[in-house]
């Protein structure tokens, strides 16, 4: 079982922008209730998409730079990057099936 790894302001470029695989980043904070419901779904998706998409999480309390750069003012927010480019954004809690659809869409365009 692959764990969803933490990405930080400092490791963003290397982990996300320079990743060979597409990356989905779960923007969360400890005080955010709905984020606690997203986390287990992201964990499940990371297993289903193993080898195809990398899943990471970013704590917006500890890492203000990346959220600010992408204008994130609401969490949970999920951002999908491929080859350093932003391919999709999901704001707010969505059921797993919705997320799969959004990931598949973002990565086939």
């Amino acid at each position: 079982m692959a764990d969803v790894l933490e990405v930080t302001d400092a490791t963003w470029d290397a982990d996300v922008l320079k990743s060979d695989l597409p990356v989905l980043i779960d923007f969360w904070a400890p005080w955010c209730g709905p984020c606690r419901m997203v986390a287990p779904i992201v964990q499940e998706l990371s297993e289903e998409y193993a080898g195809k998409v990398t899943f990471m999480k970013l704590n917006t309390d500890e890492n203000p730079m990346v959220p600010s750069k992408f204008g994130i003012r609401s969490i949970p927010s999920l951002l999908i990057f491929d080859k350093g480019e932003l391919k999709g954004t999901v704001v707010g809690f969505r059921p797993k099936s919705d997320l799969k659809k959004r990931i598949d869409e973002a990565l086939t365009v």
Partner: protein
Amino acid sequence: MQQLDLAIIGGGGAGLTAALYAARARRSIIVFEGNVTGGQIATTDKVENYPGFPEGVNGFDLAQLFLQQAEKFGAEVAYERVESLKRLEDGAFEVTSTERTVRARAVIVTAGADYNKLGVAGETELTGRGVSYCGTCDAAFFAGQKVIVVGGGDAAMDEGMFITRYAESVEVVHRRDELRASAILQERAFANPKMSFTWDTVVEAIEGDGKVERAVLRNLKTGETTIRAVDGVFIFIGQVPNNHILKGLVELDAGGHALVDLQMRTSVPGLFVAGDLRTQAARQLISAAGDGATAAIAAEHYLTELDAGA
């Protein structure tokens, strides 16, 4: 097709309580929830009017307790949006979600309500980029910034005060010259040094390049328009009932809420509506939970009669 005794549509306070009662009655049930369990309560920072919690309790945590208690007795929540509800010829129901269709002998609809939108330019485009409908969710992104809160009810005051924990200032923009909020919340809001009040005024447009930068305000009495530099616009102007699956099936009141009797029965046998979606609801967590219990007990009677007749 999955065959069930009871389908519950909506996993908020009413739905989770109905699930608890029906699961304890050993019925086969499913709860459909298209968003976060707990519904509106899940994004409430502090619930102070639910008995049993004298210190208050975080809404999300309380919703999780509701969920755990229902699950403990075997209730299962499917995180899927319900798209249609059909009554079959034999009196049973067909519930179709984004993922599946189930057949249920009885249905309790507890789909609740969604927040109203202002319907002004910029609102949709800037949602999540400074426009928000949830202070407890998004306030932390407005540390040291200027925020407008639209509305004059309990939610506007509650959330506005929460936002002052982060924001430099919260300007309440209200279309009337007095608040609708309960007396205790009004007292606290007026005493909060970070909160100011702009009366008889509406937000006409929200502007900004990729994020909220300005709001256009119009005074309803003078007609005067002002442009305000702000970083966030939080909107709390009431709710609309989530009644789309009920349309054409049960009678609705003028506000779109389902007509039910004191046992939460609609005019359709086996179909119950409980919580904020029913007519004349008090729209409180405690009354929603009470409705859920009432509906589950009425549904149990209905199923018992069906069992006896079959």
